[in-house]
């Protein structure tokens, strides 16, 4: 498809900060989230989960439930489709174990009862016999020759022959001659880095309410980032048709990538089918930690060569990502994003995807990129210290600009990395003196951003107002931005637009809300749908006036007669045309459906001040500034919100969040008490600066913003902490024990 040239148009509504259309519902408790739906005759489902990290399931005895009147249905793996392959099989195997339990928390069976208490009691009566198998939860251990095999034959074809069966993916990219590049360097630094798995930590538990009739027709209400995908997956797992399962996306209480995956909806449908009643399943927080998310843990090695003046001569990185008991960790993304901010003549990136006895990793905000940035940007920081160079200057010397060859292959189109670095350099935060004991850290970050299948419909009402139907769940205020776009295009007030997330029966397929794609792709589709509507409005006016299509034009909310007919007719407003549309040709609806490409990549630069208590290892974040290229901010408040949220999640990941397994492979901290996400008193104000370097692939210049904001924090904080503690931190999280240990090891 052709793309409009980016016009230097001035906006009236885009770029302002109206109140969100779903706001009042959300501040009054009326908004309905995943767990807020109730149906007559509804049952409650509960899932039995493996207490072992790796075990053969010898038998599942449900005989104690057979005469239990409170139990309305029981399902195990046998109640799902048996002829699946590839990723479909992986999803099924993850949501209901087959022959083996692959991780602590793996689903084994499920029941439905009239109340949740009854359902939980019923689970206790199911007797499962396990044969416990050796397990592995560490990425390096899982690659060793004698490591227990999670599953034979899972490797992708790109994996070199002769590797351990747990190694299921291999990626290699780069260009130039790395060895020659290192020879040119004045200083070469290399180091190993590790990061722990971090959970997306959305506050709303996964929840669904599902009904399935014996004929395979189903209805699902659930919190998801992609309800069309839920329909597709459920149909496959239950042997039904995607069109027969209508899925409605509830309000969604956070996702961050973690609600792109399907976990409980097929189970609820299977229970409902057996019980012939609606079944609701709500995950407990314990289940969420044990059986959903998190992102990969990593083990990384990075080597960089630099000239005394700060110019990088060569860079090389190996990124090993543990993705749980299934293939799919974002190791290619790690490898491709690692060096993306820098123009390198010689670069080589290698990624490994490794399976372990842990939950299947799920996408988490710019999957793979934050960890890689942690490793690379830590080394760059170390160069700055050793060569006594300014951290922003060094990044500017090496920064990619339009036309630079990216580390992953193609050349960059118009991008805003240099602009974020220049803004950082002149930001008051960077100029502020650094207090004693405080360390300041800088880091850049990169993310691709996405397009994907998108379909919207814009219907005109008789009173001249418009209702927009989109198919992408609103995870960050997108209904506000979409309404602004309609308002901008049609010249009708923002309040006169109603944006709705339509169900799967109402619109064509929409790709999941992920990859920072919604404001870009749904936004683009909304612009096009509005333009389609304007065209239809013009046609309609022309028809009313008896003129040719070319003899009318659109201006500022009116259709006007053009050329020789100018002045013959009073311009018609949208409201004028809408009022009579039933008699002039019928309803007027603007459509757009496509898979838009051209999502502009984006960059960010973060500045952070951190202070380490050298006696206890406690880190406090003293000041934080996010500077990121948004292309064009449709609703600046929500863009800032994304920046701040990404930084806050990064702070948690950097300092305290981690998956802690015991020797038996059992997760030790499956709750918010010991999986420590930042609380209000942990954080300072998070300052933001929006840079707008338009994306040439979008009519308004929009780039996705949701993900790039989590790419720099791990490294920026590590650099600040390292500076404050006086010791390079190479492992995340930098929890107090790890900081003290690193300081001790350094001293002794």
């Amino acid at each position, binding site marked *: 498809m052709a793309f409009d040239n980016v016009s230097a148009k001035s906006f009236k509504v885009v770029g302002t900060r109206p109140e969100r259309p779903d706001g009042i519902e959300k501040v009054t408790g009326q908004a309905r989230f995943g767990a807020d739906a109730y149906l007559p005759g509804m049952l409650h489902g509960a899932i039995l989960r493996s207490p072992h990290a790796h075990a053969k399931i010898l038998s599942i005895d449900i005989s104690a439930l057979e005469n239990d009147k409170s139990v309305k249905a029981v399902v195990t793996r046998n109640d799902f489709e048996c002829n699946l392959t590839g990723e479909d099989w992986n999803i099924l195997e993850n949501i209901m174990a087959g022959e083996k339990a692959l991780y602590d928390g793996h689903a084994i069976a499920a029941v439905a009862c009239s109340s949740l208490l009854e359902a939980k009691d019923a689970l206790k009566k199911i007797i499962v016999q396990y044969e416990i198998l050796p397990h592995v939860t560490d990425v390096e251990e899982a690659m060793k020759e004698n490591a227990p095999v999670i599953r034979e034959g899972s490797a992708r074809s790109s994996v070199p022959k002769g590797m351990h069966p747990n190694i299921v993916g291999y990626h290699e990219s780069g260009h130039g001659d790395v060895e020659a590049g290192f020879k040119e360097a004045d200083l070469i630094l290399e180091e190993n880095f590790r990061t722990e798995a971090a959970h997306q930590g959305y506050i709303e538990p996964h929840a669904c309410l599902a009904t399935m009739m014996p004929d395979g027709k189903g209805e699902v209400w659930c919190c998801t980032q992609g309800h069309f995908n839920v329909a597709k997956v459920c149909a496959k797992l239950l042997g039904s048709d995607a069109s027969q399962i209508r899925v409605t996306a509830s309000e969604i209480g956070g996702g961050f990538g973690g609600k792109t995956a399907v976990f409980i909806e097929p189970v609820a449908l299977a229970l409902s089918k057996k019980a012939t009643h609606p079944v609701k399943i709500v995950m407990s927080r314990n289940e969420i930690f044990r059986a959903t998310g998190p992102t990969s843990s990593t083990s990384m090695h990075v080597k960089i060569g630099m000239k005394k003046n700060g110019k990088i001569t060569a860079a090389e990185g190996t990124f090993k990502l543990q993705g749980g008991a299934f293939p799919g960790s974002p190791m290619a993304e790690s490898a491709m994003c690692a060096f993306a901010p820098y123009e390198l003549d010689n670069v080589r990136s290698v990624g490994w995807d490794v399976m372990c006895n842990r939950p299947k990793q799920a996408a988490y905000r710019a999957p793979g990129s934050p960890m890689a940035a942690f490793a690379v940007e830590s080394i760059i920081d170390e160069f700055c210290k050793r060569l006594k160079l300014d951290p922003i200057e060094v990044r500017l010397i090496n920064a990619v600009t339009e036309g630079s060859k990216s580390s992953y292959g193609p050349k960059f189109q118009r991008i805003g990395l240099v602009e974020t670095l220049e803004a950082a350099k002149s930001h008051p935060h960077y100029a502020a003196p650094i207090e004693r004991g405080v360390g300041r850290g800088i880091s850049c970050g990169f993310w691709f951003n996405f397009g994907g299948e998108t379909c919207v419909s814009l219907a005109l009402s008789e009173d001249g107002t418009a209702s927009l139907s989109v198919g992408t769940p609103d995870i960050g205020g997108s209904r506000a931005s979409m309404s602004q776009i309609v308002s901008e295009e049609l010249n009708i007030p923002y309040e006169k637009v109603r944006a709705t997330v339509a169900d799967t029966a109402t619109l064509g397929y929409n790709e999941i809300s992920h990859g920072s794609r919604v404001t870009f792709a749904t936004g683009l589709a909304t612009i096009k749908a509005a333009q389609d509507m304007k065209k239809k409005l013009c046609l309609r006016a022309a028809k009313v006036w008896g003129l040719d299509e070319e003899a009318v034009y659109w201006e500022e909310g009116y259709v006007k007669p053009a050329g020789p007919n100018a002045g013959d007719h009073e311009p018609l407003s949208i409201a004028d045309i809408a009022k009579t549309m039933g008699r002039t040709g019928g309803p007027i609806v603007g459509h757009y459906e496509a898979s838009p490409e051209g999502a502009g990549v984006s960059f960010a630069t973060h500045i952070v001040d951190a202070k380490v208590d050298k006696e206890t290892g406690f880190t406090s974040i003293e000041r934080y500034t996010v500077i990121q290229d948004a292309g064009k901010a449709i609703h600046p408040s929500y863009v800032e919100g994304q920046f701040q949220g990404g930084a*806050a999640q990064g702070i948690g990941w950097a300092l305290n969040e981690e998956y802690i397994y015991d020797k038996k492979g059992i997760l030790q901290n499956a709750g918010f008490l010991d999986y420590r996400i930042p609380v209000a008193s942990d954080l300072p104000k998070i300052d933001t600066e929006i840079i707008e370097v338009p994306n040439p692939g979008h009519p308004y210049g929009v780039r996705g913003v949701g993900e790039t904001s989590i790419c720099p924090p791990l490294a920026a904080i590590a650099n600040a902490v390292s500076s404050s503690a006086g010791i390079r931190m190479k492992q995340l999280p930098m929890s107090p024990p790890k900081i003290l240990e690193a300081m001790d090891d350094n001293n002794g």
Partner: protein
Amino acid sequence: MKKVHVSTTINGTLKEFLCDTRETLLDALRDHMLLTGTKEGCGTGDCGSCSVIFDGDVICSCLTLAAEAEGRNIETIEGMAEGGELHVLQKKFLEHAALQCGICTPGILMASKALLKKNNNPSEEEARFWLAGNLCRCTGYDKIINAVLDAAREIREESDGV
């Protein structure tokens, strides 16, 4: 299993319900009275999404037995706007874009209401520590704190004006 009969006042209205003794106040609000504005985020008192005001104090309804509601006075998010008029906190949350996904919002509003009743001039630090039991994963808390402090300022101005 025999159920317990409970009569309690919720948002100024006398309510009665039957519950299992093991059920929490949160379960009763949501499942028996369909007041689903009070959210469950963790069920163990670690996230604050289920905050309600119980005889004047903000508490986690997930850590309170439903049976304990007998004869008590409970305020939930559904009672915050009165007579079609939003509470100043609700207005400020909208104005400052202090919510993204909105799941933590009811709990944070209830906790903030309790704060401003106790202290209508909290410092930023006081507000942050008061709200430390209310997890938000979307916003980084920045705009939430701005909204609470701005609401406090408006409340002070209104009371000074009287």
